[in-house]
C-alpha cells in the first residue's frame, strides 16, 4: 500500500570506498524507494557488504554521498542507527541468552522500554513462532528459528528500513520460504528492505535488483527488465544427446557467444533468433541428436553470467 | 603413505604457526626474554639491603660496627635517622628495610666488659628477604662480638691464638664456586620454557580444529588418528628442540653457565621430557571443550606447578611434607634435577637413572592416556 510513496528511502551518488590500494566500492549511485524490496547481488567480494556497512553508518565512505531515511550517511550516522535494522550474514545473537533475553536486550539498546517492549516482544515471538520456546537458550534453537529471531531482533524498534546481509545463508529451503514471507509482510507494512543474496530464486522476489561486480553496479532494474533488456542477443535452450559433445561443438561455433550447461539442457547465446537454424544445422552435421532447440526467456542466472562476462571482457 | 600423510599434516601445522605472529613471539621471543630476565635481572641472592643507622653512641666502636655492616656487601647504609619518628617513617615508607639502633652506652658497656645490646628493626613484610637479611645481620653482629671479645682477651694477657677465632672454617662451594644465582636458575629454565610451549601451543591444537569444524574434514580424509597426532605434534617437538638449543647457546655464550656434563645427554633426556609435556598438552586439548578452557587449564595444570613446585626457584625441601609428595608427580621436578645434575655437576646416567626413569614412565603414561583420549574424541 505504501510501496509507491515516491520519497526515497536510500539515495547514493558517487559512493567510493577504498582500503589502501584496493577499491572495494567504485563510484556507485542508486535510489531505493520507500517500501521497496531492493535486492543486491554479486559474488563474494563484489562490494555488497561494504556498501551496506557504509549505509548503516559503520564505515565512512572515502568519497561520494548518500542518505538513508533522509539522513546523511556521513554526518548523521547516529540518527540513522535508530531508524534502521540490520541483520548480518553470520547469525549474530547471543547463544547463551534466552530468546526473550535477546529480544529485550536489543530492545532496550534501541530505547524500547516498558509496555512497548512487552508488545514488541510478543509480536516478535508470534512472528518467529517462538512462543513455546521463549525461555530456551538461543544456542539450542535450529538455524531457521535463529534466523527468524535475528530478524525479529533487528525489527524490535520498528525500523523504517531493514538491511539484510545474506540473511538466509545456510538455511534449509522451507525455512527460507518462511523467512521471505516475513520479509514480504514487513514490506507490506511499509518497511524498506535492502537485501543481499546469493540465491537467484530469492532475487526474483525483489522489486528491484542491482548487480555488483568488482565494486561497480553493472546492472540495475526490476527482474523483468533485467531479463529482457540487459541480455545482448538471444538465448537458445538446447536439449541434445550426447550433451557433452553438443557443448563442445557449440562452444566452437563462432555464432555462439556463450554456452553453459543448465540442468540437463544447454543455454547458448546467439546474435538473434534467426541464427537458431544455423546452430541446429551445425549440431546435425556433427551427428548430434537435437531433441529441442528454441529461444527461451533467460533466467536471472543467465543474465548475470552474461553481464559479468561482458564486464570482464570490457575491463 | 603413512609417512607422507603425517608429513602433510605437519607441514600444515608448521605453516599455521609461522603465519601467526603471536605464535612466533611465544616460540622465539618469550624464551629469549625469559632467559635474559632470569639470567640478568632476577637475582635470588639478597644483597645491598637498604639499611638505616640510628647511632646514639657516636663512638669509634659504634662506627666500627656500622662499617662491618657496610663492608659485608649485604647491607647499604642509606640514612642516619636522628630520632624514633624518623626511624618509623623510614620503615613505613619502605625506604629502609632494616634499622640498626646503637644505644648511647654502647662503647661504655663494651669497655666495661659487659654485654652491650643493640637493636635491629627489620621490615618483615617480605619474609624471604627479611629472614635472609636477619641471618646476615646476626652473622655480622656475632663476628663483631667475637672480635671485641678476642681483643679484650688479648688485652687481658691471655695466650690466645694470634689468628683470632679458635675454630677457623674453611668453606668451599662446589659446582658454583662464585655462588651465581643464574647458574642455578638457567638450567632449570629449559624445563620451564619447554613446559610453557607445550602448554600454550599444543593444548589448543585439537580444540581449535574442533571449534572451527576443520577436524571433521581431516577425519573424513584417509588420515588415521595416529598419523594425525604425530603430524600435529612433530612441529612442536622440532620447535621445542630449537628452543633447547637456543637456551643452551645463550646460557653458555651470554651467562657463561658451565655445561660440565654431556650435551647429548641433555638433549636425549629433553626429548623424553618434551614427549611428557606434549602428552599433557594434548591430553588437555582433547579433554577441554573450548580453546578458552584449554588455555586456562593448560596454564593452571602446567605452568604453576612447573614454576612453583618443581624446585625451580623454591626448594622442595622447604615445602610441607604433603606437597613434597605432590612434587614427585610433576615431570619438571625430575627434569630440573637432571638438568642441574648435568649442567653443574657433570652427572651421568649412573647417577641420574632414577629421575630419568620416572620421567620416562610419566612420558609413556601421558602419551598412552592422551592417545587413548584422542582416539575417543575423534
Amino acid at each position, binding site marked *: 500500500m505504501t510501496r509507491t510513496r515516491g520519497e526515497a528511502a536510500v539515495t547514493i551518488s558517487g559512493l567510493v570506498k577504498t582500503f589502501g590500494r584496493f577499491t572495494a566500492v567504485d563510484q556507485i549511485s542508486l535510489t531505493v524507494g520507500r517500501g521497496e524490496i531492493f535486492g543486491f547481488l554479486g559474488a563474494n567480494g563484489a562490494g555488497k557488504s561494504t556498501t551496506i556497512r557504509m549505509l548503516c553508518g559503520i564505515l565512512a565512505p572515502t568519497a561520494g554521498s548518500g542518505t538513508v531515511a533522509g539522513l546523511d550517511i556521513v554526518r548523521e550516522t547516529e540518527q540513522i542507527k535508530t531508524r534502521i535494522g540490520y541483520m548480518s550474514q553470520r547469525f549474530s545473537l547471543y547463544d547463551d541468552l534466552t530468546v526473550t533475553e535477546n529480544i529485550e536486550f536489543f530492545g532496550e539498546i534501541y530505547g524500547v522500554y516498558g509496555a512497548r517492549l512487552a508488545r514488541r516482544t510478543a509480536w516478535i515471538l508470534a512472528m518467529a513462532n517462538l512462543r513455546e520456546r521463549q525461555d530456551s537458550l538461543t544456542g539450542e534453537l535450529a538455524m531457521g528459528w535463529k534466523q527468524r529471531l535475528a530478524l525479529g531482533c533487528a525489527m524490535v524498534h520498528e525500523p523504517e528500513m531493514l538491511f539484510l546481509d545474506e540473511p538466509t545463508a545456510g538455511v534449509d529451503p522451507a525455512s527460507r520460504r518462511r523467512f521471505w514471507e516475513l520479509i514480504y509482510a514487513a514490506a507490506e507494512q511499509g518497511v524498506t528492505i535492502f537485501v543481499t543474496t546469493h540465491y537467484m530464486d530469492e532475487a526474483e522476489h525483489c522489486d528491484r535488483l542491482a548487480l555488483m561486480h568488482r565494486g561497480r553496479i553493472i546492472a540495475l532494474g526490476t527482474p523483468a527488465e533485467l531479463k529482457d533488456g540487459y541480455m545482448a542477443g538471444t538465448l537458445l535452450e538446447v536439449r541434445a544427446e550426447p550433451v557433452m559433445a553438443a557443448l563442445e561443438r557449440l562452444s566452437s561455433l563462432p555464432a555462439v557467444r556463450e554456452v553453459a550447461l543448465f540442468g540437463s539442457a544447454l543455454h547458448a547465446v546467439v546474435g538473434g533468433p534467426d541464427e537458431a537454424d544455423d546452430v541446429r544445422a551445425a549440431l546435425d552435421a556433427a551427428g548430434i541428436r537435437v531433441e529441442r532447440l528454441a529461444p527461451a526467456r533467460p533466467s536471472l542466472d543467465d543474465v548475470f553470467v552474461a553481464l559479468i562476462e561482458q564486464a570482464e571482457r570490457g575491463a | 603413505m603413512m609417512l607422507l600423510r603425517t608429513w602433510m599434516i605437519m607441514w600444515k601445522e608448521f605453516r599455521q604457526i609461522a603465519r601467526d605472529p603471536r605464535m612466533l613471539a611465544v616460540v622465539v621471543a618469550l624464551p629469549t626474554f625469559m632467559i635474559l630476565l632470569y639470567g640478568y635481572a632476577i637475582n635470588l641472592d639478597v644483597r645491598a639491603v637498604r639499611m638505616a643507622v640510628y647511632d646514639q653512641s657516636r663512638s669509634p666502636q659504634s662506627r666500627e660496627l656500622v662499617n662491618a655492616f657496610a663492608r659485608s656487601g649485604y647491607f647499604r647504609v642509606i640514612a642516619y635517622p636522628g630520632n624514633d619518628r624518623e626511624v618509623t617513617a623510614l620503615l613505613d615508607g619502605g625506604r629502609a628495610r632494616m634499622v640498626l639502633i646503637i644505644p648511647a652506652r654502647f662503647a661504655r658497656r663494651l669497655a666495661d666488659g659487659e654485654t652491650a645490646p643493640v637493636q635491629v628493626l627489620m621490615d618483615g613484610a617480605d619474609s624471604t628477604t627479611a629472614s635472609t637479611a636477619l641471618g646476615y645481620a646476626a652473622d655480622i653482629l656475632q663476628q663483631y662480638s667475637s672480635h671485641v671479645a678476642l681483643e679484650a*682477651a688479648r688485652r687481658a694477657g691471655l695466650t690466645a691464638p694470634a689468628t683470632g677465632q679458635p675454630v677457623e672454617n674453611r668453606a668451599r662451594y662446589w659446582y658454583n664456586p662464585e655462588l651465581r644465582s643464574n647458574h642455578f636458575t638457567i638450567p632449570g629454565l629449559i624445563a620451564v620454557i619447554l613446559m610453557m610451549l607445550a602448554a600454550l601451543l599444543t593444548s589448543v591444537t585439537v580444540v581449535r580444529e574442533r571449534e572451527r569444524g576443520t577436524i571433521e574434514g581431516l577425519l573424513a580424509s584417509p588420515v588415521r588418528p595416529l598419523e594425525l597426532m604425530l603430524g600435529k605434534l612433530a612441529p612442536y617437538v622440532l620447535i621445542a628442540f630449537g628452543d633447547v638449543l637456543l637456551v643452551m647457546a645463550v646460557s653458555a655464550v651470554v651467562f657463561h653457565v658451565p655445561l660440565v656434563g654431556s650435551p647429548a645427554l641433555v638433549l636425549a633426556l629433553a626429548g623424553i621430557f618434551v614427549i611428557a609435556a606434549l602428552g599433557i598438552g594434548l591430553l588437555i586439548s582433547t579433554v577441554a571443550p573450548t580453546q*578458552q578452557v584449554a588455555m586456562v587449564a593448560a596454564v593452571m595444570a602446567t605452568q604453576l606447578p612447573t614454576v612453583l613446585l618443581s624446585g625451580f626457584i623454591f626448594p622442595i625441601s622447604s615445602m610441607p611434607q604433603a606437597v613434597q609428595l605432590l612434587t614427585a608427580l610433576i615431570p619438571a621436578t625430575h627434569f630440573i634435577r637432571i638438568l642441574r645434575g648435568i649442567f653443574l655437576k657433570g652427572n651421568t646416567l649412573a647417577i641420574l637413572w632414577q629421575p630419568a626413569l620416572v620421567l620416562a614412565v610419566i612420558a609413556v603414561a601421558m602419551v598412552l592416556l592422551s592417545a587413548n583420549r584422542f582416539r575417543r574424541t575423534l
Partner: protein
Amino acid sequence: MNLHRILRLMKKELIQIRRDRRILAFLFVVPVVQLFLFGYAVSTDVNHVAMAVLDEDRTAESRALIRRFTASGYFDQVAYLSGQREIDALLDAGRAALVLRVPRGFGHALARGRGAEIQTILDGADSRMARVIAGYTNGVLRVYGGEIVQTRAPRARLPAVDGRVRVWYNPELKSVYFMVPGVLCMVLFLITMLMTALAIVREREIGTLEQLVVTPLSAGELMLGKTLPFLLIGLIEIVLTLLTAILIFRVEVAGSIPLLFALSALFLMTSLGLGIFISTISKTQHEATLSSFLCFMPFILLSGFIFPVENMPAAIQGVTYLIPLRYFLEIVRGIFLRGVGMDVLWPQVIALAVFGIAILSLAAARFSKRLG
C-alpha cells in the same frame, strides 16, 4: 552517554557470566589455588639441611663440635662418611647439601689452646640456599668459638654485642603474609585483563559486535558496558581473596580496607585498559589469550611479586618503573602489612593514576577507531 543502555549491556554481560559455569569456577578456583600455592606450599625458608659428617679426628672435641651442629636445629645428619672419596658421590647425587669435615688434629689443637681448623663443603648449585647454609654454619661456629675463648679465660670479663631483633609488620616472618597481597594483585590483574579482552573478542568472533555497532550504542557506552561488569567482578574477586586469606590463612589486614578497595579500583583502570587494548589487536580468543599471557609474564616477573625489585640490576630497576603492577603491589603490601595510608602511599597512587589514565585513554581511542 545513555546510562540506561550501559546498564542494559552490563546486565547482559552478567547474565552471560552467571550462565557460564566454567567462568565461575575460574573466578573461584584461581585465587584459592594461588593462595594455597603461595601461602602454604612454597617458601624460601631453609631448614633441615641435609648434612654429612666426615670426622677424621674422632676425639671428644670433634664429637662436641658435631653435636653443636646437630643440636642447632638447622641440620639433619644424613650420613657419616669414612673417607674423602665418599664426598663426591654424595654431593653429586644431591643427597647432602653440606659436608662437615673435621680433620685429624682438631681436638689436639684445641686442647693445647691453639687455633683449630675445620672444613665445610657446600653444594653451591642453589646459590641462595648455599649462602643461607653458610650463615647457619658460621653462627654455630662463632657461638662455639666464643665459649672456648671464655673457658680459656674464666675470670676475664669479656665484652659482647647482643643483637636484639624486632621484626616489624610480619613478626613471625611468615611468607604467607608477604604472598597474600601479591596473590591479590596478580589474580585481580590476570582475571580482569583476560576476561575483558575475551569478552570483547568473543563478541567480535561470533559477530555480535558488528550487530552492536549498528545499534545506537556509542563506542564509549559499549566500552563502559563491557568493562564495568569486570570492575565489579574484580572487586568481588578481592572480597573472595580477602575472605580466603583471613579465614583460612589467618592473615590480618593492618590498614584500611576501604582504601584497599578504592586503590584497587584505581588499578583496574590499568588492567581493564590493557584488556581493551588486547581486544583491539586480537581477532580470536586464542590470540587474545596469547597476548594476555605475553603481557602478563613481564608484569609478574618485573613487578616484585616474587623477585624483589631491589635485587635487580640498576638498568632493570629502571624498567620496573614502567610496570604499573609494581606500584599497585607496593600499595597493597603497604596497606596489608604496614598499615600505612595515603600520607605514605601518595607517590605510588599518583604513578598508578597516571598509568591508568594513559593506558585507558589510549585503549579507548584505539577501540573507537577499530569499531569505525
